[in-house]
């Protein structure tokens, strides 16, 4: 029966961690969720009262965030996060894969190059932000680089530019969301057709039709705002994307390099014997094999970029309106303006976005582990 007592000991040793995480993660999330459904902090006097009288208001705060007049900043922040995530992931994947392929060419000094590409990963986002803030000064740094070769200096105001491109009307959001979902479903359908999984083709195809019909009919009827509200990609984010890619692309490089090293030399040689050029070896043999890495990298980078906070805080400051994101807005709303309910609601939106990316990933990667 000794074994049994050991089993109990094992559980007891795990218990402190479970309790701590239970409280600090799930208990606290629950409390934040509850706070977001109240009116705590709507009135400044109540926010700072020792025993504030807090009323339950349901989803009122959320409704305000997405459709209320004063919360236009939150909506632009969501748009900012969307574009930031898009370009940040594209940059990291492109540069990371490129560097990994270059390093895979059996070159001299690989270790040195790898060290150079990865060292920003060891730095704090605060250090990176401080440094890039200096590099992106409007009348210095990168902007004066062209003068070194006798050209005119650049005039771009990296962190404070008010220019916005790729603009759209918030009222059209249901339409664009529907369109996006329809495209994803279509893509599911096409991959299912290729794999001849007909049941999946049916489900995806039917959902695709349904969403498409709704997008072009129902979505037009949904009225989020009584007036048009323009949002778009703030060009002031380009500098932040640049710094973030500088910091994180080494990570994707490391992921890809580990994957490329896993492709056996025999397989490459076999493809070459079959007459494939080096380019074809990569395109047809190696890249399909590292496809799963692209997905993991997208998820890891995606959740980092949804949460990005320190980098922007250090580069542009917490109050710079053109480079705001929900993670920063939550901090300002909660700890500077004492609007706790609204801060909690922003945090919950952030959590839901991250969970939508992470939970399927955890689920599938742990399930495949069990299968092995």
């Amino acid at each position, binding site marked *: 029966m000794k074994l049994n007592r*050991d*089993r109990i*000991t*094992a559980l007891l040793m*795990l218990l*402190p*961690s*479970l309790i*701590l*995480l239970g409280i*600090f*993660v799930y208990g606290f*999330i629950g409390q934040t969720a509850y706070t977001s459904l109240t009116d705590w902090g709507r009135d400044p006097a109540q926010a700072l009262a020792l025993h504030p009288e807090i009323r339950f208001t349901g989803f009122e705060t959320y409704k305000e965030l997405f459709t209320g007049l004063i919360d236009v900043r939150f909506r632009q922040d969501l748009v900012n996060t969307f574009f930031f995530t898009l370009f940040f992931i594209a940059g990291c994947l492109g540069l990371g894969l*490129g560097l990994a392929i*270059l*390093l895979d*060419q059996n*070159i001299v000094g690989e270790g040195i190059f790898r060290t150079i*590409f*990865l*060292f920003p*990963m*060891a*730095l*704090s986002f*605060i*250090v990176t932000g*401080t*440094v890039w803030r*200096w590099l992106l000064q409007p*009348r*210095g*740094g990168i902007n*004066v680089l062209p003068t*070194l070769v006798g050209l005119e200096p650049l005039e771009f105001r990296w962190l404070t530019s008010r220019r916005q491109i790729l603009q759209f009307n918030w009222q059209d959001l249901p339409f664009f969301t529907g369109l996006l979902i329809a495209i994803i479903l279509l893509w599911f359908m096409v991959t299912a057709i290729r794999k001849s999984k007909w049941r999946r083709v049916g489900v995806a195809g039917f959902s695709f039709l349904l969403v498409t019909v709704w997008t072009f009919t129902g979505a037009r009827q949904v009225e989020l705002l009584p007036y048009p509200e323009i949002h778009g990609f703030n060009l002031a984010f380009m500098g932040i994307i640049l710094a973030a890619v*500088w910091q994180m692309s080494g*990570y994707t490089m490391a992921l890809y390099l580990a994957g490329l090293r896993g492709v056996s*030399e025999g397989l490459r040689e076999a493809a070459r014997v079959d007459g494939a050029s*080096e380019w074809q070896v990569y395109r047809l043999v190696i890249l399909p094999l590292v496809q799963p890495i692209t997905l*993991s990298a997208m998820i890891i980078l995606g959740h980092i970029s949804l*949460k990005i*906070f320190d980098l922007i*805080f250090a580069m542009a*400051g917490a109050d710079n309106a053109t480079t705001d994101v929900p*993670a920063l807005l*939550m*901090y300002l709303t*909660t*700890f500077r303006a004492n609007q706790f309910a609204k801060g909690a609601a*922003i*945090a919950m939106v*952030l959590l839901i976005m*991250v*969970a939508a990316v992470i*939970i399927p990933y*955890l689920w599938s*990667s*742990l399930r*495949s582990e*069990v299968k092995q």
Partner: protein
Amino acid sequence: MTATRRPYKRWHWLVYLLLVIASVFFLIPAYLVIITSLKEPASINLSTTWQLPERWYWQSFAEAWTAFAPKLRNSFTLTFFATIISALMGSMNGYVLSKWRFRGANIVFPIMLFGMFIPYQSILIPLFQFMRSIGLYGSIAGLILTHVVYGLPITTLIFRNYYAEIPDEMLDAGKIDGAGFFGLYSRVLFPLSLPGFVVVIIWQFTQIWNEFLFAVTLTRTDSQPITVALAQLAGGEAVKWNLPMAGAILAALPTLLVYILLGRFFIRGLLAGSVKG
């Protein structure tokens, strides 16, 4: 393996050229930080940003050191205790989850793991209130507790995967000798854990040293770690850039040294963060 790989000589110069260009991109900020930190404040001028200093000026480092020494000490205290405690707890958790698998472990583990992905904003308000109510708000101890708890998922993950590689037969031998739960850990597993501890300690050290959100919400001026102090110094408007740059170097040096000296383990921690490793 190197011998069998066919070098494609014709394109090699292009590969090297691209690698050098990429290296320049990665090193440019480092160059700029170093030269700016060594310039006299009066000679720092946006139009001469890229030029080497006319004369090496070390005073900025002395100034930055005076301003940052207490913050660096805070960071060291915080990082040291939080790293050690979360590593030890993670090792124990990893041992239980890999060698004493119980029913429901497959559910418990991902539930623990989820804690490392959440945006910490979603727990920040209750955490802030909690720290205030137990009197740890504004103290380094409170920050240590926070980092230990939110570090548990990743340390548990790394140790669990690390111990999973150690064959169960080695434990069976110990069991026959009559070793119990703690005996097996201390005599069989722990002596084999050194590489696992190195990976976890380096990872936690880097993460906690570099962390900002908890630090900025939970500390007061006297308990600030270096990241908060640096952000404040550089965030001021009328700032001379030599000082923040010297400060950035001081803040970056510990993790950078670890990376350069123990890079192999650092990368392993990095890859472990993508769950499957």
